[in-house]
């Protein structure tokens, strides 16, 4: 029974910390669906969100092995409670024809997106939302229209007063 889990990790913001985490996943053949990392309000601490998938026993091992890394300060499996998850998409679409421009403007509005760059031949649209919502947008845009796209990977927080702090 494979489940997807979103794990939030606070780790020391030091050279090599990221490779310790990614190296752990590759060395033990764990799966990474997405990974994003950046410093927190405390510059000595980075916060990483990893989306992984595995059986309950594998996910338990992933969490234990992550906790064992000397640079990991604390972590939480966001699947353990209610959570909020968001992903950012930047997508560049072909739209030299007026009907396409109108169509993509409408599509961006439907997805509460924003057109962040315009040229004669293209729109770059920014969408935020659940990963499934991003998938839907990409589908709706149509693969023939896509010049390029980039996704941030999932970010997540626990809902309510619960938090992950040092």
């Amino acid at each position, binding site marked *: 029974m494979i489940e997807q889990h979103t794990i939030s990790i606070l*780790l*020391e913001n030091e*050279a*090599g910390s990221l*490779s*310790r985490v990614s*190296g752990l996943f590759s*060395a033990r053949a764990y799966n990474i669906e997405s990974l994003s990392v950046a410093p927190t309000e405390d510059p000595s601490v980075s916060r990483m969100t990893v989306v992984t998938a595995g059986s309950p*026993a594998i996910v*338990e*091992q992933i969490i*234990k*092995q992550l*906790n*064992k890394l*000397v*640079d*990991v*300060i604390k972590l939480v499996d966001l699947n353990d409670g209610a959570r909020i998850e968001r992903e950012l998409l930047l997508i560049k679409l072909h739209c030299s024809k007026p009907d396409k421009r109108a169509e993509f403007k409408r599509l961006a509005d439907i997805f509460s997106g924003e057109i962040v760059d315009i040229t004669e031949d293209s729109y770059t649209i920014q969408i935020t939302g659940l990963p499934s919502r991003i998938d839907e947008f990409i589908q709706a845009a149509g693969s023939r229209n896509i010049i390029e796209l980039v996704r941030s990977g999932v970010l997540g927080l626990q809902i309510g007063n619960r938090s992950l702090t*040092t």
Partner: protein
Amino acid sequence: MSNQLRGAEIFVKALADEGVEFLFGYPGGAVLHLYDEIFKQDTIKHVLVRHEQGATHAADGYARATGKPGVVLVTSGPGATNAVTGIATAHMDSIPMVVFTGQVSTALIGNDAFQEVDSVGITRPCVKHNFLVQRVEDLAIIIKKAFYVASSGRPGPVVVDIPKDVTAALTAYEYPETVEMRSYKPTTQGHAGQIKRAADLLLSAKKPMIYSGGGAIIGDASRELTEFCRLLGYPVTNTLMGLGAYPGSDPQFVGMLGMHGTYEANMAMHHCDVLIAIGARFDDRVTGDLEKFCPEAKIIHIDIDPASIAKNVSVDVPIVGAVSNVLKDLIDVIRATDHKVVERHSDDWWRQIDKWREIKCLDYDKSSALIKPQSVIESLHRVTKGDAYVTSDVGQHQMWAAQYYTFDQPRRWINSGGLGTMGFGLPSAMGVQLAFPGATVACVTGEASFQMCIQELSTCLQYRLPIKIISLNNRYLGMVRQWQEFFYESRYSHSYSDALPDFVKLAESYGHIGMRIDSPADVDTALDEAFAMTDRLVMMDFITDQTENVYPMIAAGKGQHEMHLAPNDRELA
């Protein structure tokens, strides 16, 4: 400013403040400043090896025998890469070690400079943690952290990579008394509720089994383990890494378990109803086929590393903590009940185990005209009165040493169990002999393993280390040959030792004594003679029966109850 010190001075002072006795190393360009400071002092004794792998294994042997972290210094590039095998060896067996690697100057890092290698990157998967020292101001605190991380919690090797310019830069020196790391806080005390549950389960057992591993030795829990076992009267088995944690000559001890464990230990594991695993990690060489492992048992698992628990086998009562602390608590809880010690002679479970014992699975042909390797180990035990430090290399001789040298004390059996590193035996014996100059140190090896770190014979002469090398020379990579015989229809693909040197002359050319023994009648007298020479290294080349196999054996994919016994024992089982 007068109180400013160079990085190299700080390095040497920090090691002295840390109480380091020996530094196993090999100089090179990136560590010349460090070696210059080592030259100027005599607090820390530097041991010059002949190859960096030897340095790591020697430090490892020192750590296994003493419990103190082994310390290594090598240069950048090939110095670091040569050390990797020894670092990985220590990592697999959770041995505390601090390895300093020289690095090119910070300005050159990433430029493919001469003797540059990404040491932190290369060693990351086989260390407990590693550091790159980027500023001389961080050097002392990183050294402190390195020793703390290496020797606390589940121990392991820590690498500290020091660029050359850091060793020349100046700063004030202060060695911290203690160190606090917000991201690293090992759990050492067991959970009281879990300990109570474990005690209840243990006392309700009809067919209990105690299975202890290397954690009981590394965690210095031999005394608590012995007390715990005697308090209950239950059968005890040790893993390859755990031999000596419980006295091997005690009747409660049913022998080693696993692939080459005893019939009684493996059968008792298979049939037990409650299993307590103590500082052991359910390694594949222990469990055999996981689907068939301990099918009826409720399992209690004590380990300092939470990640070891429920990794391979699901556990009913997990207890995270230092083995010694948890056992003390468990003993207290059991003492407070009205439990009775199980009497071997009136207990059905023990009667069953003793029936399995009657097969005498370790018997071998004692009438052979060829030297049987098992007999050499039995003789070694007799000559050393069971009181030697025994290091080994990897292969058949390692298994025979584990099976036939009865270890009654912890930290006496020193072998590469996890990684299985050929070449480990001789350099690890150097570390042991340096730590205990008056002790008897025997290195059990084979002609193939021995040649993997043979250059250290020179180090042994330089430091006058009177190690006794017992080489069970069967002119084969014996364990490979055995598997080829069993599973590849005797196609002995490249498992023979061809073009062997004359080991007697070889030992002599290194300034030692060499002996060649090829008759069973000479085994005892030769060993007596060799061990009487307490101030000399003696290399003993025993020409043994080439066809001898290690029995019993659980083949890959088989369960613990499906042992392959020696030909003579098969009809008895």
